[in-house]
């Protein structure tokens, strides 16, 4: 039990490091595409360490409690993420429901903290974040339902192993519409354009985190980086057959994150109501279509 917990903490720490590094490298890549130099590749680390060492204000114990719960919940979720077939903390306990519901703790903690700040502007920010959650999660979960139903596996690592078996394709090939839907959902989950309004710098004056500064904001940045790690890892395991070794995992992880980040550069913002309507139109339709075609008609793309 202690060994598993330590492995889990190690995975969460690795996830934070990997994502912050990947994010820094991506800033360089995007800058080069735009014919700029961009910040240093380790700028993300500097930003976070600078923030967590800065003084700040707080608005009562619930304000602090919310941040602790948000980060704690996301760390706990990351501890359940399998990295490869062998690097797992709690073998046999990777039930997908854990990822669905434990992941919510992050946003709930943020909501608790933001609402305790008494600033009415934070309510507007939280409102946007929660509405976004309602928009992008439902299509994503329908695709997850399809994958669990087809693979007959409920554990994330078992779903990855299922794709590695002879005769089975990666789900990105077998379920292309589902993969497309999940990419759309990841844009929302990661706060990337066109679905970034609730964390967008242009909208920060009415954002959820306007009352958070210094150390608290730093903790929320750490939370965000780990949350992104979880989301991308889920994609790697759900659609790209997981990873048999750590190098394969890092490579797949980098490709997925960079692809989504490049899509982010191409788009402009969605207004929140448009975003909800968009997700309940095309991604939901595609997710349901994929589910019906795959589950009820058994039509999968096979090579």
């Amino acid at each position, binding site marked *: 039990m202690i060994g598993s917990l330590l492995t889990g903490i190690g995975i969460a720490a690795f996830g934070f490091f990997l994502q912050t590094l990947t994010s820094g490298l991506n800033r360089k890549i995007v800058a080069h595409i735009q014919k700029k130099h961009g910040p240093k590749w380790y700028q993300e680390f500097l930003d976070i360490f600078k923030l967590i060492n800065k*003084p700040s204000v707080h608005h009562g114990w619930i304000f602090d409690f919310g941040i*602790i719960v948000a980060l704690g919940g996301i760390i706990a979720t990351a*501890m359940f993420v399998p990295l490869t077939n062998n690097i797992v903390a709690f073998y046999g306990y990777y039930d997908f429901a854990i990822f669905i*519901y434990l992941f*919510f703790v992050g946003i*709930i903690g943020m909501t608790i903290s933001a609402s305790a700040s*008494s600033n009415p502007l934070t309510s507007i920010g939280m409102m946007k974040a929660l509405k976004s959650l309602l928009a992008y999660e439902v299509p994503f979960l*329908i695709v997850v*339902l399809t994958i669990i139903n087809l693979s007959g596996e409920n554990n994330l690592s078992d779903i990855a192993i299922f794709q590695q078996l002879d005769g089975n394709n990666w789900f990105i090939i077998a379920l292309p519409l589902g993969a497309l839907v999940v990419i759309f959902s990841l844009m929302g989950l990661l706060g990337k354009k066109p679905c970034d309004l609730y964390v967008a710098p242009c909208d920060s004056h009415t954002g959820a985190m306007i009352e958070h500064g210094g150390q608290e904001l730093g903790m929320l940045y750490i939370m965000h980086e780990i949350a992104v790690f979880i989301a991308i890892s889920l994609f790697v395991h759900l659609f790209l057959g997981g990873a048999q070794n750590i190098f394969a995992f890092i490579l797949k992880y980098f490709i997925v994150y960079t692809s989504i980040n490049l899509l982010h550069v191409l788009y402009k913002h969605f207004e929140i109501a448009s975003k909800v309507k968009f997700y309940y139109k095309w991604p939901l339709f595609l997710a349901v279509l994929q589910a019906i075609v795959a589950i009820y008609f058994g039509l999968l793309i096979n090579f």
Partner: protein
Amino acid sequence: MVKYLNLKINMYLHHPCKVGYSMISIEVLILFLIAASAVSYLLTKLNTFVGSMMTTITTFFTLIVLLIFGLNQSLESSATIVNFFSFEPTYLGLFFSIVITFIYFLISFAHHCFLSENEYKDVYNFLFLLSLAGVIGSFFTDNFLQLFFFFELIVWSTAFLIPLGKSKKAAVTYFGFSIAGSFAMLFGILLLGAQVGSFDISYGLENVSGVTAVIVFISFLFSAFAKLGLFPLHTWLPITHGNAPHTFSPVLSGALVKIGAFIAIFVLIKMDPVSELFVEVNLPSAHYFFALLGSLSIIFGTIMAIRSDDAKQLLAYSSMSHGGYILIAFSMLSSVAFASGFYHIVAHALASAGAFLAIAAVARQVKTTDIKGISGVLQKMPITYVVYLISVLSLIGIPLTGGFISKWLLFKPIFYNGWVFIGIAGFIGSIGSILYVFRPLSSLLSGQEQIKFDIKIKEAPLLMLIPMIIITFLNVYTGLFPHTLLTLINKVISELGYPRLDATLFSIAGYDGVMNPFLIGAVFLVGILISFLIFITLKYTHPFSSENEHLNSDTICQKELLYHRAHYFDQIDSSYRSVVTKMSDFYSFLTKEILLIGKKCVSYFMSNHIEIAILWIIILLATLLLGGLL
């Protein structure tokens, strides 16, 4: 300590006979409750506190009897005093009666805090206990006609309790829907009795067949929908819950609506399926249809809760949504699904009662439940805040709460059978619940402290805090150690003829997945500990009171902020506003038409003019003569 407690409870649940209690009659228990209600009436007349305590002691005694004698299978079925009644102690009835009596017991603590200002406080305690007598009778009777009688006892006693709150319209609405449900069930009972020649519940459900079975199935489910407040028979829920006395809303939502689930179990599980198997979804088509209706309830309840401005109405719509989960669970015809349904009944009862009590505690101070009207009581009522928070986390289904276990169990069959449309509803319900439960949290409990409430707001009194703290503890306990509750649920599932769920002290197995709630709790605590260590190690913050903040003191006057505060989710609400009002418009239209017909009937048949009366008498006599009846 917890492990020891678990062992003791489980040992008792597994080997109740070792305790060796003598028998107690269900009839005596019901008569005791009726007598206690009269005593409570008299005592409350003399002293509110003593009368309320009498109510609490009575409900506690009832609960203890059910726990000790019920689990020990020592409840006597025969009736000797009122010998035309008969009972049959079952685990199904025991489960429901324990859950509901427990909620009655906890809520009764708070009676004194609210009744002292109520004009009819003596009647309140009387009707409260009388309705509990009806509850016990309903769950243990073995005869359909007696079941109808006990249901009516509940309906009539509660229908007089509800107007002791804010509005009489709420009571009328509740009564109308309840009576419609009751009479739909009576119609089914009479048809069933005519076919099988008996009103015995088990015999009747086993032997009813053909078209009669279909009609009984539909009429019973109509009744279940009315009692559970499911779409499209849901409109009474927000009106009644929103306007019922603050201490009765938790009982209505947490306990009494679950009677609908009890009726649904009769036809969905105990009766042979009345329809063909729908191969694609591996369910009888009628079951799938009603599961889809349950899904609609989830979606409709969620979007209506999101647009509610009243905290109690919001929670009422939440109850409608959770009723949908329960109906889906009992439609799925598998042990895991049934376990989720029974577990959800308990989890929702606790979460809903906790949330309603927290809102009641705030409303007691500020005299309103309007989300737009108040804010910032958090600093003055921190315990109430935590109680509400834990309760709503359970409503959402966050790990470490009872709601997570039930939803985990529910989603298992949905995923494995590929029930896409039911899944969509379940996902919208789960995520949507985050939106609506946080509206009271951020607007009513948190937010700017309002100067007008600043002086007089205090934490809830001890008698309210006791049930709130117990409920909060149980919300977490049921999320960490589901085995205790699943032991009883397994007995119910076995009784229904389905295999038991594989559950040990630390894990539950559903299909090929294994859940270890204790492990999730431990990992979550490690996460919190790491987060806390980061916070403590780097702590360099200073407190900042709301008066010092420019934004706090000034910008609330801006129209934009006031708008967002009042219309929190307006942007998404606008996209479905026209759709959701159609159902209430339809019921308004129906009410108007019925009133119009009623007025016409009154003018035709009950006229003051003697000549019209004579005309009707002549027509009646002529009809009878023509029909050869005279």
